[in-house]
C-alpha cells in the first residue's frame, strides 16, 4: 500500500509546489490541508505516514497543531516535519518542543525535502 503524506499549508502556491515535487519524484499518496484544524481532522481520519506542515497558518498554527496531534494516540509516532520561514534557533526550539521531528526552511529546496521525507519513510531510513 502506498504511504500517505499530509501536506499542510495555507499558501496554495506552496501546496502546489510541494504537490508537484512529490508527484514528480515519489509515489506517495498526497493529502492536503489548509490550516491546523483541517490538518488534525485529516490526520485523525487518514492516519498519514508523515506530515509536512507550515508553521504560520490561520485558525491554528503549525506548532499548536503539532502539539494537538501528539496528544492523539494514533498520531503520536507519525513523523512531523515543519516548514518554517526562519531557521533561527528560537523558532526551531519551539518546533521541537511542540513535538515535531524535523524542519525545513522556505523557500523549499526540492532535493533536500525529498531526501528528508524519504529518510523518514524508507525502511532503512526510518527515524523515530
Amino acid at each position, binding site marked *: 500500500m502506498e504511504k500517505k503524506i499530509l501536506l499542510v499549508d495555507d*499558501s*496554495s*502556491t*506552496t501546496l*502546489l*509546489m510541494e504537490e*508537484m*515535487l512529490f508527484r*514528480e519524484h515519489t509515489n506517495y499518496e498526497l493529502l492536503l490541508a489548509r490550516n491546523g484544524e483541517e490538518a488534525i481532522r485529516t490526520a485523525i481520519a487518514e492516519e498519514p505516514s508523515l506530515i509536512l506542515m507550515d508553521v504560520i497558518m490561520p485558525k491554528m498554527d503549525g506548532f499548536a497543531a503539532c502539539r494537538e496531534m501528539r496528544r492523539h494516540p494514533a498520531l503520536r509516532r507519525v513523523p512531523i516535519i515543519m516548514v518554517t*520561514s*526562519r*531557521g*533561527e*534557533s528560537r523558532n*526551531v*526550539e519551539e*518546533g*521541537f*518542543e511542540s513535538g515535531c521531528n*524535523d*524542519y*525545513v*526552511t*522556505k*523557500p523549499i*529546496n*526540492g*532535493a*533536500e525535502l525529498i*531526501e*528528508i521525507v524519504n529518510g523518514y519513510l524508507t525502511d532503512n531510513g526510518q*527515524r523515530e
Partner: protein
Amino acid sequence: MTLASGPRQKPRHVRETDYARLEQHLRDLSMRYRQQCAEVSPGNAKYMALAKLYAGAQRLHQAVKEGAVAEAIVEIGSNLIGCEQMAVIVASGKRKNVDFIGSVGLNRKQLKAVRMSAREIIEEATGSVYIANDGGKPDPLLQSLGITAFVPFWLDYTTKGAIAFFDLLPQRNGLDSTDRELLTLLRAYAGPCLSTSKQNRRRRLNECHHEAAYDR
C-alpha cells in the same frame, strides 16, 4: 537544514562566545549542505526553477479579484523567492493617488517611508526590473529605502504600480537566477492580472447597475 535531535539549549557551562561560534558553525554547515544538495542533483535546480515558475504563473492567473492578485504576488514573494519584507503598490486616478494593496513584514517606519516615496517611485520607474547590487546603475531613491528588488507593473508604456522587495529571509544569500526569472514573470503578468481584476470589478458593477435598473 535538518537536525537529528532537538531542542537545542545552551548548556550552562558553555560560554556565550563559544555558543555563538557553534551557532555560526551550524549555519555554515547548513549552507554547505544546501550547496552540496545542488551539486549532487544537477537536475534539481532546473526542475525547481520550472516548478516555481509554473506555480507562480498558475497562482497569478487563478486570481480574479484585486485582493486575490495582491495576495498571490505576496505569496510568490514570500514562499517562492523567500522575501521577508515586501509591498505591493498601485497608482490610481492618473497616478495621483497611490494605494498599498498588499504588504508583508514591513514595520511602521518602513511603511511610512515607502508611502511617502511611493508616488515618486512609480513616476520614476521604467519598465525594467531593478535589482540592487546587480552591477547595474544604482538607483539612489530605491537604495535609500533599502529596496533589494523592484518590479514595475508596466502597462501601455506606463508604470501602473510596483512591487518593492526589501529584506530576504536570513537563509537567502541574495537573489539567484530562478528568483530573477520569477521577478521577470511578475513584471510580465502581475500588471495585466491587476488590470484584468479591475476590469472584472467594473464589469460586475455595471451588471449590478443594469440589474437594478431592470428591476425598477
